C-alpha cells in the first residue's frame, strides 16, 4: 500500500512537470502555429540558470524567480530575431527552432562543459504521509506546478487578456481587424511559454542531474502528450500528460525505463491513429 502511494505521488510529480512543459508548447502553437523544438533547451536554460546562481552563492529562491524571467527574455529574443521572419513557413519554423536548440545546447556545453552539474534543494525534510516518508521538496514541486497551471487557465479563461488571446487563436485575421495587436500577443505568448519551460527547468533541477542533454527527455513526452491530448485546447496537454506521464512512471518503476519508453511511444502512435486530432480534438479544421 505504501509502495502504491509513493508510486502515485511520483507519477503525479512527473505528470505535473510535463504539463508545465507541454502547456508552453501548446500556447505558442495555438497562437502562432509554431512548433517550438527549442522548448526542451529552454527547460535546460532554466535549470542552468539555477546552477549558475547557486554556484555564485545566491539563494535558491532568487534562482527560482530569476529562471523564468531570464528564459522568458530568451524566448522574447528568439521570437524577435528568428521566428518573426519565418512564422508563415510552417516546416521552416520547426527547423529554425530546432537549429536554435542546437545553438543553445552547444552554448551551454561551451560555458559549463558536457558533464552533469548539481544543485541543492532549499529544504531536504521528509514528510510523513500515511506512514511512509516522502521528500517535502517533491510536494513543493507539485504545488508550484499546480499553482502555475491553474494560474495559466485563469489567465486564459478568466481575464480580458485571455479573452483577447483566445480571439487571436480562434481567428488571427479577424482579431487583427478588431484592433488587437497580434504582434504584441505573439511576443507575449512566446515569452510566457518560454518562461513556463524555464520555471519547470529550475524547479526540477535539484532532483535530477543537470546536463546538456536533459532537454530532450522532457520535450518528447511533452510533444507526445499534445499529440495524444490534442493541440486545440489548453486541456489537451493536461489530459495527454496525465496518460503519458502516468503510464511512463508506472511502467518504469514496475519494469524498466526502456520498456516504459517503448510502451508510451506505442500508446501515443496508436492514440494518433484512433484520434487523429487528439482526444480532445483539434478545435478547428
Amino acid at each position: 500500500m505504501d509502495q502504491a502511494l509513493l508510486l502515485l505521488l511520483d507519477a503525479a510529480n512527473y505528470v505535473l512537470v510535463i504539463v508545465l512543459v507541454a502547456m508552453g508548447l501548446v500556447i505558442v502553437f495555438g497562437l502562432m502555429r509554431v512548433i517550438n523544438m527549442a522548448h526542451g533547451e529552454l527547460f535546460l536554460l532554466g535549470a542552468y540558470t539555477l546552477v549558475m546562481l547557486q554556484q555564485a552563492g545566491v539563494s535558491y529562491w532568487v534562482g527560482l524567480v530569476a529562471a523564468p524571467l531570464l528564459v522568458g527574455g530568451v524566448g522574447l529574443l528568439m521570437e524577435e530575431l528568428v521566428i518573426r521572419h519565418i512564422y508563415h513557413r510552417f516546416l521552416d519554423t520547426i527547423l529554425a527552432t530546432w537549429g536554435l536548440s542546437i545553438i543553445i545546447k552547444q552554448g551551454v556545453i561551451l560555458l559549463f562543459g558536457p558533464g552533469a552539474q548539481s544543485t541543492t534543494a532549499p529544504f531536504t525534510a521528509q514528510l510523513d504521509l500515511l506512514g511512509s516518508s516522502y521528500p517535502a521538496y517533491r510536494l513543493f514541486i507539485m504545488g508550484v506546478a499546480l499553482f502555475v497551471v491553474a494560474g495559466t487557465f485563469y489567465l486564459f479563461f478568466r481575464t480580458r487578456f485571455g479573452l483577447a488571446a483566445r480571439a487571436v487563436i480562434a481567428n488571427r485575421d479577424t482579431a487583427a481587424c478588431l484592433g488587437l495587436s497580434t504582434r504584441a500577443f505573439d511576443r507575449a505568448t512566446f515569452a510566457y511559454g518560454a518562461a513556463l519551460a524555464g520555471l519547470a527547468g529550475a524547479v526540477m533541477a535539484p532532483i535530477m542531474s543537470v546536463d546538456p542533454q536533459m532537454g530532450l527527455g522532457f520535450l518528447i513526452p511533452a510533444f507526445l502528450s499534445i499529440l495524444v491530448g490534442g493541440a486545440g485546447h489548453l486541456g489537451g496537454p493536461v489530459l495527454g500528460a496525465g496518460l503519458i506521464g502516468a503510464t511512463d512512471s508506472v511502467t518504469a518503476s514496475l519494469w524498466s525505463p526502456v520498456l516504459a519508453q517503448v510502451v508510451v511511444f506505442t500508446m501515443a502512435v496508436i492514440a494518433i491513429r484512433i484520434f487523429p486530432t487528439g482526444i480532445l480534438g483539434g478545435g478547428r479544421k
Partner: protein
Amino acid sequence: MKALLKDRRSAVDLAVWGGLAALPLFMGAWQVGQIAQYLTYGIFAMSLALIWGQCGLLSFGHAVFFGLGAYAMSLTTLGMLPGWLESWTSSYLGVALALAVPAVVANVLGRFLFYGRGLQGAQLAIVMLAVAVVAERIMTRWGYAGGMNGLMSVPPVNLGAFGLVYELYDPLPLFYGTLIAALAVYILLEALVRSRRGVVLRAVGADEARTGFLGHDTRSVKLAVFTLSAAVAGFAGALFAGQFGFVSPPLIGFSLSTEVLIWVALGGRRALITAFLGAIVVRLAENALGDLLGPAWLLGLGLLFVLCMIFLPRGLLGEVYARVTGGAGVR
C-alpha cells in the same frame, strides 16, 4: 525552351558525377577511403531529401532507418541471424534485409502516423524524433547486438557469388563501388522525381488538401514515398556498415538524425544532387575544422543552419544550383 532548361540541369548533374569520378586522381588513398564513406552519407541524404524536399515530410529521426540497415547488414554478414538463417552470411542477403527491414518499419509507422491531423501534420517529424531516441536506447540495452559497444569487425561488402570472393576493401574499388551504388540510387530517385509521380509528390508537399481534391490518394502517396525513402536509407546504412566495419547505437539515434537534416538543409533539399553534395561537403568541412573548433563547430553549424532557414531556404548549394540551372525542376 523547357527542354533546353531541363538539359542544362542534366548537364550540371553529369558534370557533378564526372567530377566525383575524377576525384581519386587528385587525392591520396586515405582521403579516397574517407570520401567513399561520405558517399554513403550522401545516399542517406538523398533519401531524406526525397521525402522532405519533394513531399514536405519532415523526419527528425531518419537515422533510425540508416541504423536498421546497418544493423541488418552486420547481423547477417557476421552470421548472427537466428536459427537456420545463421549460415547465410552473404552480403547480398544483408543488403536485401537492409532494404526490407527499414521499409517494413516505415510502412507500419506510416500507416499509423499519416492519419494524424494534430499539430498541422507535424506528427511524423515529432514521432520520428521519439522513435530515434527509443531506438537508440533499445540498441544500447540489447546485448545480443553488442549493446553499447556495438558490433565490431563487420566484414566488407563481398560482391562475389557461388563461392567466389571479391571484397570491397581497398580504397579505390571501395570508392568506385560506392560511387556506382550512389549513382544507381540517384538515377532511380531522379527518374521518380522527374516523372508524373514526382509531380504528384511535389503537389502533396505544396498542398495536400488540394491534391486530394484532384483525386489523388495523398495518404498512399506519402506512405509509398516514406517506405521507399526508408529502404534507401537502409541501403546507405548497409554500405556504411561494410565500409566502416563497426556499427554502434549512435548510428540509429538522435545525433545522426540531426546531422543528416543539417546536411540536407545546408546542401539544398529541393534537388537530390544538392542534398547528396551537402552531405559530402559538410563532412569534409567537419573533417577540416571539427578538431580545431570542438563544441564550437556544432554551434557554428547550428547558427549557419538557422540563418539558412531564414534567408536561404533552398540551401547554400541549392541556391547556386537553382541559379545555374535557371530553377528548372527545382521549386
